[in-house]
C-alpha cells in the first residue's frame, strides 16, 4: 500500500490556508520556464525577423500574428487527446503507464470527494495535480519532447476542467 503513504505528506500539510496558497505557485514556477523555453528555442530562428520589430509595441503586435502559429507547435490538448497520446507514446513503459493511470484515478477520486464536501481542499488538489504533471513530464521530457511540450501547454486548461465542478462532473459521466 505505497499509495496512501505517498499522498499522506500532502494531506497532512494543507491544514492552514496561507501555507497552501503559495505551495502550488511554487510548484508551478520551476516547470513553467522550461516549458516556455523548450518550444520557443527551435522556433526562434524562424521568427528572427519579427523580433527585430520589438521596439514598437504596435508593430510587435502586428508582427506577432504571423509568429503566432509557432507556439502552436505544442498545441493545447484536451483530456481525450492527451490520454490517447500518453497511451501511444513509447517513452513510457507499460507498467509505468498503468501506475500513472492509477495515480490519475486516485486524483480524480479525491476531486470527487472534494466536490462532495469532504476533506481535500482545492489547494491540496492543485499541489497533487502539479506533482503528477511533473512526474509525467519527467518521464516524457527526454524521449518524447513533443508530447512533453503539449502536456505543458495543456496543464492549465486541464486544471481548469478539473477545478470547475460542472466540467469535472461532465468528465466523470
Amino acid at each position, binding site marked *: 500500500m*505505497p*499509495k496512501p503513504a505517498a499522498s499522506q505528506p500532502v494531506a497532512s500539510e494543507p491544514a492552514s490556508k496561507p501555507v497552501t496558497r503559495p505551495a502550488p505557485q511554487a510548484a508551478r514556477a520551476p516547470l513553467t520556464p522550461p516549458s516556455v523555453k523548450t518550444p520557443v528555442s527551435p522556433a526562434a530562428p524562424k521568427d528572427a525577423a519579427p523580433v527585430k520589430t520589438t521596439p514598437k509595441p504596435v508593430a510587435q503586435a502586428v508582427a506577432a500574428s504571423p509568429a503566432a502559429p509557432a507556439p502552436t507547435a505544442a498545441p493545447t490538448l484536451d483530456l481525450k487527446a492527451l490520454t490517447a497520446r500518453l497511451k501511444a507514446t513509447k517513452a513510457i513503459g507499460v507498467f509505468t503507464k498503468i501506475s500513472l493511470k492509477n495515480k490519475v484515478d486516485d486524483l480524480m477520486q479525491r476531486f470527487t470527494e472534494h466536490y462532495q464536501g469532504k476533506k481535500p481542499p482545492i489547494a491540496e488538489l492543485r499541489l497533487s495535480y502539479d506533482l503528477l504533471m511533473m512526474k509525467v513530464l519527467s518521464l516524457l521530457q527526454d524521449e518524447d519532447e513533443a508530447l512533453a511540450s503539449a502536456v505543458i501547454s495543456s496543464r492549465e486548461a486541464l486544471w481548469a476542467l478539473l477545478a470547475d465542478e460542472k466540467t469535472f462532473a461532465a468528465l466523470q459521466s
Partner: protein
Amino acid sequence: MNRRTVVFAQSLLVLALFVSPSFAADEETLKKDLTAVIALQGLPCGEVIEVTVQAESDFAVTCKDANKYRVYLNAAGRVVIDKPK
C-alpha cells in the same frame, strides 16, 4: 560433419546473434519501466539491475542500492509494490 549440418549450425549462430540482442533490449526496457514505476511510488531504488519474472505481470526486482521489491499488477488493475521482509 556433412555440409547440411554445417549450414544448419551457421544458421543457428546467425539467429542467436540477432535474437539475443532483442532479448537484451526487452530486458533493458523492462528494467527501465520498473525503475520508473518504483520511482513513481517514491520508493528508494536508484535503478533496477535485476528482474526475475515470477508470473505474468509479477516481478521480483533488485535495485542498484540493494533494495528488493515485488512489483505486480493486482486483480483491481493496480500496480503494487511490496517490499519483501
